[in-house]
């Protein structure tokens, strides 16, 4: 359950988001991958209202000019390094250690991928890496499938959040199994962040309505025709979904229920 429900405070769209022992004002985390230019990236980050952004680590390219770090630091955002591209626990742990040195942060978005076609997590390697990184003092945010049992295992080894996919990375296919996400949210004692698969604003809103504490997305914004506009849409969607979740929605019914009193209708015939 989200922290807002746990502490008994009256929940509202403006509630702080507790993650990794810190309090955040935005529930939208934005990946920096896929933007066509640094200018697009910067405009979208500003429009999204995000406070946390992901970056990857790759071999130094002497020809690269613009630095993503310059943009992030200029905007004063928190860097969340990821282990994208890692296929084994060993590689992911090494990458996390490099990231800790590169950014002086012990936060890591843990990705351990099973194959390059689906980019789905390798559950066995993921749990092994998470356990080790937690033991080494990292704040571990694992990208996982929407399997409630796997989410529980990740929480049990000490992850600071669980981040189930809605659908595969970059697919834009939305939330394919809302029932599983609901179960994950229901059982989790740590924040649940829907990571991957978001295609448009209604997907992000749905994730929040299902009870997620936050949404992590990149492609939906970075590959949109107008990234800045989509970033603004995602910001509104996350806020709207969060508010709706806590507003106590009406139950779904098969038949209509009149909202106008039937008593007192004049006889006019």
């Amino acid at each position, binding site marked *: 359950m989200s922290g807002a429900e746990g502490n008994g405070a009256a929940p509202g769209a403006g509630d702080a988001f507790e993650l990794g022992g810190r309090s955040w004002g935005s529930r939208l985390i*934005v*990946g*920096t*991958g*896929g*933007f066509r230019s640094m200018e697009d*990236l910067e405009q979208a980050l500003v429009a999204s209202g995000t406070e946390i*952004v*992901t*970056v*990857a*680590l*790759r*071999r*130094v*390219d*002497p020809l*690269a000019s613009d*630095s*993503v*770090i310059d943009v992030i*630091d200029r905007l004063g955002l928190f*860097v*969340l*390094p*990821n282990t*994208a591209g890692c296929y084994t626990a060993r590689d992911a742990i*090494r990458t996390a*250690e*490099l*990231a*800790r*040195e*590169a*950014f*002086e942060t012990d936060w890591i*978005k843990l990705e351990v991928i099973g194959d390059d076609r689906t980019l789905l997590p390798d559950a066995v390697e993921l749990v092994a890496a998470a356990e080790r990184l937690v033991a080494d003092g990292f704040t571990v945010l694992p*990208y996982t499938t929407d399997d409630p049992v796997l989410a529980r295992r990740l929480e049990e080894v000490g992850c600071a959040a669980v981040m189930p996919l809605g659908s595969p*990375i*970059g697919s834009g296919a939305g939330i394919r199994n809302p029932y599983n996400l609901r179960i994950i949210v229901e059982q989790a004692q740590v924040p649940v962040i829907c*990571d*991957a698969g978001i295609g448009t604003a209604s997907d992000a809103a749905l994730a929040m309505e299902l009870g997620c504490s936050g949404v*992590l*997305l*990149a*492609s939906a914004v970075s590959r949109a025709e107008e990234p800045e506009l989509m970033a603004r849409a995602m910001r509104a969607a996350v806020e709207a979904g969060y508010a709706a979740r806590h507003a106590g929605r009406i139950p779904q019914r098969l038949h209509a229920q009149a909202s106008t009193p039937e008593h007192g209708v004049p006889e006019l015939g």
Partner: protein
Amino acid sequence: MISIVLNGERREIAEGASVRDAALLLGAEPDARGVAVAVDGEVVPRSELETRTLSDGARVEVVVAIQGGS
């Protein structure tokens, strides 16, 4: 001169060269935020970039932050 493997390519570097020297060979800014170095699979702490010397055949990886994330 000794021979090292720097980001996958064989390079010559002076004997006694530091990890920092190797990173500079790539045009990297080893002290910049977002840059990290591993030698033979082990991460080198920033504080040791200057003092740790390379041995013949060392595999050096210099990485930097790039755009990334689902």
